[in-house]
């Protein structure tokens, strides 16, 4: 679980390039997203891409009306923080933590829920650094759910260089500035 101590939202290239038959192009995108010129371009991923232990911020749901309404009343509203807690033994339904509740969703449902990476937490710890142009509104709800790694987080403040794995997240913060 040591990996879980750093928030590194992993965004799969499939999210923006879903055509599996064009593998070379896909792998180009994968490398480009990870290390190359496209680093930080992909701002939005989907919930199913979240690795277990990671937390993302919900952006939008793209589901049939009634399902969407139901999920939103269970707490899946924009700006809510969702943590992937564990996968079922067979690997498919994944248990997500939201608002302190544990809710299981299948891959196809989770892949219709868009998320963005969790912003570096220190922004909350040091209010002076809150940037006005961040998508999250000032009146954002304070959810009671804190991911497991939140306690270990403050040490990894903005001044500390993020680790290799969180490259996308740091790029995002840069882009937001």
């Amino acid at each position, binding site marked *: 679980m040591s990996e879980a101590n750093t928030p590194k939202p992993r965004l799969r290239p499939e999210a923006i390039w879903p055509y599996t038959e064009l593998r070379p192009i896909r792998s180009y995108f994968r490398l480009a997203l990870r290390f190359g010129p496209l680093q930080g371009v992909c701002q939005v991923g989907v919930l199913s891409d979240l690795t277990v232990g990671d937390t993302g911020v919900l952006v939008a749901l793209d*589901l049939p009306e*009634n*399902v969407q*309404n*139901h*999920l*939103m*009343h*269970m*707490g899946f*509203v*924009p700006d*809510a923080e969702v943590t992937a*807690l*564990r*996968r*079922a*033994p*067979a*690997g*498919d*339904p994944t*248990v997500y*933590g939201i*608002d*302190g*509740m*544990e*809710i*299981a*969703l*299948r891959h*196809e*449902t989770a892949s219709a829920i868009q998320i963005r990476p969790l912003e570096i937490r220190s922004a909350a710890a040091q209010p002076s650094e809150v940037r006005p142009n961040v998508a999250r509104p000032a*009146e954002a*709800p*304070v*959810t*009671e*759910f804190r991911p497991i790694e939140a306690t270990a987080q403050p040490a990894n403040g903005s001044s500390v260089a993020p680790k290799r794995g969180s490259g996308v997240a740091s790029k995002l913060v840069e882009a937001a500035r």
Partner: protein
Amino acid sequence: MNACCDTPVFEPPAASTGSSLRTVVLIGPPNSGKSTLFNKLTGLRQKVANYPGVTVEQRMGVMAGIGRSDLTLIDLPGIYSLTPYSEDARVAVNVLRGRMPGTPKPDAVLLVLDSLHLTRQLMLAAPVLDVGLPTLVLLNMSDLMKSRGGQIDTLKLAGELSAPVAQISAVRGTGLGSVSLFLNQQNGHGEKNKPLLLPVLGNAASTHTWAAQVSRNTGYKAPLSAENTRRIDNVLLHRFWGPLLFLLVVIGVFEVVFALGQPLSDGFGELLARIGEIARPLIPTGWLQSLVLDGMWKGVCSVLVFLPQILLLFLFIGILEDTGYLARAALIADRVMRTIGLNGKAFIPLLSAYACAIPAIMATRTIENKRDRLATILVTPFMTCSARLPVYLLLIAAFIPNIYFLHGVIGLRTITMLSLYVAGFVAAFTTARLLKSSILRSSDTPFILELPQYRMPTLYSLGLRLMDRARIFMKTAGTIIVAVTLALWALAHLPVIHTASGALSAPQLADSLIGRLGHFIEPVIAPLGFNWKIGIGLLSSVLAREVMVSTMGTLYGADPSTQALNLQTALHHDMTLGGALALMIFFAFAMQCTSTIAVVRRETNSWLWPAAQFFYMLAMAYGAAFAVNHIAMAIWG
């Protein structure tokens, strides 16, 4: 409903209630403890367990538990919002709005919220308060919240909601005084509440923002999330250990039902037999004694004997339901359920059908998709319910030798039992697959399941369950089984014939009415290895499966050649091993239960489905029994 109501002034609907308050309704999110509170307030015993969706219909009771027998309390299924998503939620919303035929319009609302997750639970408060009925907000499980370091300012919350708020613990029964206080206040002239700022209703995002703001303003500090639940899940939902433990638990349950339950049942049977012998001198000899002791008592005893084993099974199911494991089982099973076109939610009714198919069919109301729900209803009777247990136990004890394998770890009898359960399960799955790939094909509905936190089951609630189940079982034994036995006994002793000496006497069993009926149907069942006595048993078991056992008890009791033997030995007169195996398979597949047929008729609202289901299952049972009998004959001659 008005779409935007920023400042609704809500007051008790003066016109309808006047000064009298009659109906109070309990509403809240799933698994927030409404039914537990209902039981406390009414003194009734509504089923409670630890998973969302236990209550699937409205239940009414008078509030005798707090001395208000003039008031009706309605318990409702849990809802997330007033926009219903599944059938059970639709029931709740209709009752709340007073649109449910046969259910009185509510005059006041008790909104039950789980204070461990108040922020999200408050989302329901907005639309419920908007309905405009006098509402008392009850923060349930407040004892747990406090012990885990959470806190809330209830006065501020009451101010924010303009509704009285009380902290309670439904399990412990603390804080219930506030409910009577609230109801007494409502009895007088309805006081006008202050206007309330509500979010735009119907918009989940704004409701969530509102709920978050309210919980922040009231200084709500969420309790630490239960780390125990995560830790337990690390094992129970482990990629490798999870399914393995699940299997071990299932095998263990059956081992215990045999290893521990059999001696218990034997002792119980001896006790019942002794009671019969004590009563023998009290009844005048002659036909009355024969009717009461050899007919009725023997029939009832032959079924009652299995009570200890059935209670053991129920104890295990109760533990699974009360701890919160059932929802995890659904999660594990989702992958398998997907291959047959259903989702993991359908697994909860299927699992609870191990106890009884009737509540299981009711529980399918939590399945959102209509076609999925119908498919689940249609396959549920294949699951091995506890009424089959007496038949299996009797036949296994009579025909399967008590051999143990693997140094006594697993017995042949347990294996036989398990394979019967597996047979039912496989039949259910295959049928569901067939249905879902043909007439009930539908697009996948998303699987959305809330996992409750683990809780320790209380001895009290487990005890109540067992007592209720024992009562139901005794009631069946006391009514249906007594009636069937009486009818059988009469049929077995008619027509009265004149013997050579001129005295009246009962006919030979084979010449009696029942014998003639049996011989009439014998050609149909002979290929399965059953003789006419078994045929009579099969006919009577359409009422309820366990009647089979009592029928055999009565028939052997009426036959002088088997009168002195116990049921297991007597069965050897009529059956080969092949016939016994065929009979067990027949019971595994056939839908012999009038109550199940009635509940399917009610839930599907048509006679077509129960009829189709009955004949499909009958055909399958007949075919399988035929095959088993002939294979067994080929092997053992």
